[in-house]
């Protein structure tokens, strides 16, 4: 299969994000993940100018503890006709938008709530070895963990350390190059009152002096661990035009695994052909084809940033710079508000909060509405990615024209 049917089956511009909502982002929410999800969902539905009874679809990340029936009941939805999930983990947000679009265009739902909720700091911390990886016997059941974790390779920071070291050795990428990504995200968070790092500056000296987590990964190369939730409402563009906000139109959404994705969970990504290029490379091609837009058309980007090196690889995989040039591109100032590609204008995972990619969608909508705390002048096209290593999803949000 090569050519994509771009006429009859296109989803281009046919759906939009009509509402956005977030909870407070903190280190200790003091409430359940269901309560957090409820806060974000209520805010998103109110923002759209809808009622809970107008929502007939609910989509979740496979890592969420909150299920469709939980939210449907707590919010008072009267009849949900569509639900589902995507993952693993951080792939979900844009992928779920794709599911929402599919459900709406195939007549299975009219208004779909997409959410992510986690007590990522006070509850299960992804920066630690997961419970199953602290067992006495490791692996099996298709995880292939037995080839990785018995050696002490247990956390995402260690895995991304292997990727970052390879990139630095292969292409001459420096710590300062990578630090430029952390600093760009932090500056945007400094202006965002909703960000965990609001008014908490970070200098290059602070970045370089911080302790190593898994060399060459330093403390500020790692995302935050956050208690919080974010949610959006997707409906048809036509209907969104009659609602409370100007629509953030979904120009196109795409997923890709690429070839030889490897079976198992997380660590097998280290066995793919390259560890410095990710499935995002394939997602980019497909997204550009489906959207009719290219890297040059992007005014602002919300790039999935579990680690700084993830952003660097996306810069290359999405074609914003040549392969191997991501570090020099980042340190050129391109990622700043006045640069050619402002990124993560709410602060991203690195400095706003880690809502597993869902806060990137919320911020993307803000840019299209013109309401970001770091607004890019005249932003009409925003790329949003959801892209940890196992696979990748992304979308283009555009202004309604």
């Amino acid at each position, binding site marked *: 299969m090569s050519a994509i049917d771009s006429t009859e089956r296109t989803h281009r511009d046919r759906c939009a994000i009509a509402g956005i909502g977030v909870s407070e982002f903190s280190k200790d929410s003091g409430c359940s993940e269901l309560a957090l999800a409820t806060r974000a969902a209520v805010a998103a539905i109110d923002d759209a100018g809808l009622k809970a009874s107008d929502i007939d679809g609910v989509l979740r990340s496979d890592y969420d503890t909150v299920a469709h029936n939980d939210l449907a009941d707590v919010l008072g939805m009267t009849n949900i006709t569509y639900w589902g999930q995507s993952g693993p983990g951080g792939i979900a947000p844009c992928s779920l938008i794709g599911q929402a679009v599919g459900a709406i265009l195939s007549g299975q739902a009219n208004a779909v709530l997409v959410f992510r909720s986690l007590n990522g700091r006070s509850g299960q911390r992804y920066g630690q070895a997961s419970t199953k990886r*602290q067992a*006495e*016997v490791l692996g*099996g059941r298709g995880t292939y963990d*037995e080839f990785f974790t*018995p050696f002490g*390779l247990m956390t995402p920071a260690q895995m991304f350390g292997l990727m970052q*070291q390879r990139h630095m050795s292969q292409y001459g990428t420096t710590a300062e190059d990578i630090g430029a990504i952390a600093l760009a995200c932090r500056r945007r968070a400094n202006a965002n009152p909703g960000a965990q790092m609001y008014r908490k500056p970070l200098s290059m000296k602070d970045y370089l002096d911080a*302790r190593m987590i898994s*060399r060459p990964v330093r403390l500020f190369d790692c995302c935050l661990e956050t208690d919080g939730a974010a949610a959006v409402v997707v409906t048809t563009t036509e209907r969104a035009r009659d609602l409370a906000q100007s629509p953030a139109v979904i120009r196109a959404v795409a997923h890709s695994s690429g070839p030889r994705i490897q079976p198992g969970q997380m660590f097998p990504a280290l066995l793919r052909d390259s560890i410095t290029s990710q499935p995002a490379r394939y997602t980019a091609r497909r997204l550009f084809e489906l959207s009719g837009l290219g890297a040059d058309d992007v005014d602002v980007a919300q790039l999935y940033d579990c680690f700084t090196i993830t952003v660097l690889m996306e810069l290359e995989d999405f074609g914003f710079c040549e392969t191997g040039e991501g570090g020099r591109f980042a340190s050129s100032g391109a990622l700043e508000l006045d640069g050619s590609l402002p990124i993560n204008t709410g602060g991203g995972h690195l400095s706003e909060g880690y809502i597993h990619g869902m806060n990137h969608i919320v911020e993307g909508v803000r840019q299209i509405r013109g309401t970001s705390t770091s607004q890019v002048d005249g932003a009409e096209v925003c790329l949003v990615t959801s892209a940890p290593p196992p696979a990748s999803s992304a979308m283009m949000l555009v202004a309604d024209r």
Partner: protein
Amino acid sequence: MSDPVTPIRPVPITTDHDTAGFFEACARGKLVVRSCTNCGAVYALPRDYCRECRSWSMGWKEVSGEGTLYSYTVAEHQIHPAFPVPYTVVLVELVDEPSVRMVGSIPGDHELEIGTPMQVWFEEVADGISLAQWKVR
């Protein structure tokens, strides 16, 4: 206060249908890769089906135990009590089968160079259970 307890070193599962053969070989001091006995295709992570020739005749192929350092990271943030920091996690590409990479770990903080020749050795982590470990050759 109780006496400090030596943390239990976690071990790989050795009864998984797809991966047990690898660890059986390690226990005998042999390094093997999953390979199709029909067409010779090699798979970094074991499975029963060959996607290249559509056969179900997978076996284990012994390889030399020589590798090349593909990447490494030095864990400095303490995570698991059985793995005191610092330790160096190595990702090694097999000389005989460059499509296959394996992970190892070396106690301590090591400044290494990608491309460095590596050699497998077998570390018995529990009775009858060995890991294929890697050291600088």
